[in-house]
């Protein structure tokens, strides 16, 4: 899109977003309304909603004179679009920073207990059905095993347990995927104390192609490359160095994602940060 030579088709249409399949690389790109935050592969435009624009799936999309043309009726002027590049914060490597992070992790755990939405990783006290109950049980169990593997540095087993979460859960982006998005975003922070080798992330990316839908897979792929939406970058920055006052609105923003997606992402983040706080010690220096 930045090169203004995009071509593809409309993949899916929602109220606040539409997804486009790029014919060049097969990846999904999103056009979102102003309620959305910046994110990888995402163009934010000043529009109220997409559902009433008369678009349909498979409509061709091309670029023409700095304009994104969708079908015959929608043209988006992209000449003045500014490029956004998010960056994950650095994991703290001094005692004071670790103390702040530890405090914020404890606060976030409490916050998720109170405000987190149930139905996914957080089990409802009154599941709507045996299916929902079983799903939450499996999610919690598998996330627990993954967490345990990470704590004990069993990376092979951790990879398998991570894969067992892909595609598991309710909603458009299954809860297991959301959890892994949160977890990956932590392990992709600079200076993270417990490095995970590339194969872990590669395997997640590879498996997601087959195990979950395209919309969720692209989010997971980007997270496994350390690219996440702006609100997630902000939250991690607040976790690392923010005050309570800064942390709460950042948490609210994440909890507001989807139905239980935000909560599931947060639980993934907490899992990653807790494992790293336990590990402490070694600092993985950024590669020059």
């Amino acid at each position, binding site marked *: 899109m930045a090169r203004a030579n995009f071509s593809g088709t409309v993949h899916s249409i929602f109220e606040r977003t539409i997804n486009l399949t790029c014919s060049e690389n097969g990846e999904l790109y999103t056009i979102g309304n102003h309620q959305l935050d910046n994110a990888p592969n995402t163009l934010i435009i000043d529009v109220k909603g997409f559902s009433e624009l008369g678009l349909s799936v498979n409509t061709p999309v091309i670029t023409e004179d700095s304009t994104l043309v969708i079908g015959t009726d929608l043209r988006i002027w992209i000449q003045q679009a500014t490029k956004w590049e998010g960056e994950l914060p650095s994991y703290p490597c001094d005692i004071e920073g670790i103390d702040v992070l530890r405090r914020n992790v404890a606060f976030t755990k409490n916050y998720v207990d109170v405000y987190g939405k149930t139905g996914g990783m957080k089990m409802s006290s009154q599941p709507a059905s045996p*299916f929902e109950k079983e799903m939450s049980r*499996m999610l919690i169990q598998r996330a627990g095993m993954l967490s345990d593997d990470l704590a004990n540095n069993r990376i092979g087993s951790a990879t398998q347990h991570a894969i067992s*979460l892909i595609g598991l859960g309710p909603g458009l982006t299954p809860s297991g995927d959301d959890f892994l998005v949160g977890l990956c975003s932590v392990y992709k922070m600079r200076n993270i104390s417990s490095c995970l080798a590339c194969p872990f992330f590669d395997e997640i990316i590879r498996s997601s192609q087959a195990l979950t839908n395209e919309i969720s897979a692209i989010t997971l792929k980007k997270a496994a490359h350390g690219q996440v939406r702006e609100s997630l970058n902000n939250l991690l920055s607040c976790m690392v160095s923010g005050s309570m006052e800064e942390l709460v609105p950042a948490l609210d923003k994440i909890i507001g994602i989807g139905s239980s997606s935000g909560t599931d992402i947060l639980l993934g983040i907490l899992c990653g940060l807790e494992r790293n706080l336990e590990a402490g010690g070694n600092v993985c220096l950024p590669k020059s």
Partner: protein
Amino acid sequence: MSTKVVIKQSTYFDSVSLMSLSTKANQIEGVEQAVIAMGTDMNKEVLKNVGLLTPELEAAKTSDLMIVVKAATDELCESALMAIEELFKKKGGSKSATEIKYSTIDSAAASIPEANLAVISVNGAFAAREARKALENDLHVMLFSDNVSIEEEIALKQFAHEKGLLMMGPDCGTAIIGNVALCFGNAVRKGNIGIVGASGTGSQEVSVRIHDFGGGITQLIGTGGRDLSEQVGGIMMLDGIKALEEDEATKVIVLISKPPAPSVQEKVLAQVKSCKKPVVVYFIGGEETAVLEAGGHFAKTSKEAAIKAVVLAGANEDELNKRALNWPLIEEVRAKLTPEQKYVRGLFCGGTLCDEAMYLAMDKYEDVYSNIQKKADYKLKNIHESKAHTFLDMGDDDFTNGKPHPMIDPSTRIARFLEEAKDPSVGVILMDFILGFGSHEDPVGVMLPAIIEAKAQAAKEGRHLEILGYVLGTDLDTPNFDEQVKKLMDAGVTIASSSTNAGLLAREFVAKGE
């Protein structure tokens, strides 16, 4: 049992819609279980675990939407699937406001524009933020949560004051707004008396007594217990008086509080002085002179506050049954007690009821101990050990840390009661039983076995154990007031007709040589 499946190929709905559809599908009549989920391998594994996987579902792709319905018959399955299809068309259609759960105050306020009050009960760490959101949405607030810092309380109350809104709380457990009791409250008739109360059970007691004397309530505005502290400065009480003064239906105002900070009392009484309506002031343990100088009507007890209010509101005092103290009963009980049985032990759910009984005892005795005593010398060092006359507010943080309030869970009080009943120096054990919204469904019932056991044990030891009970409630309350009283009387418990009489009877029962 029948299971039907629909696969919607390459169909994407956002998560919120999917979750909403799934919830509604499970509520369709006749449906034992409904599943709406993406066709991933892992979700199929879940279906297999709950016995719902079919070959058709096995074939679903990750981009497909699986819909599974399990019901008693094929017909029920079919009709459920049709209903689900309708839901898809509506994409989460409309429901009446009473059925909708909102996850944020903002969304609730946006969806119910006619709403003007938010009742908030969340973890104290987040309570102030939620209250502020509500105020920003122009909602009056009743904040039930405690553990809110005094700085946050001040900021919230100042903000509410600027916006002309009520900020009841934090730690506000009782209010009656528009004849609806909020949190802990009683069913009292509508009338022309307005109350502003910084004491929860004190406000309940006065409202119930007003009802008993034939009067009724316009609004009962709670302030939260710290409102009359030096720091908060009575912001809510002052605004409450103002609101009731402007309310046409209110003819008389009653103020209820534990003794305010002197500077705050001054402010409140200045407002009483300028108020065009009669104001009854019941500051527990307070002084009469300042109130009278401000043109207020001083009440020493909750009963007196109620009587003065109903008379000012138009009742004929001569026709009131004021439920005078039963002196023959006092003599009768005194005769039953041994010289050693000198002490009152009060075990209260209601803090203000405890306060009132304690202050009445202090009028007569020196050695009155409590966990809420203002006099340092008489504040219990060890709350688990009574001394002389002891009055315990078992709803205080001392007792409720990490446990439910005794109005909800009576176990702590039961255990303490059995301890006190063994003490041969105890002449009377006084207990309150609070009825109404938010309270235990049978507060008397849960205490009865312990009462019967204690009475029997005392009789075995050759001593009379006087148990004095006060049931706070009206004839309109649930559980039934008369039934609760009857249960106590049948167990040999003496019944007081008000909080005031309970305190007076208790202190008189153990008086010696009069």
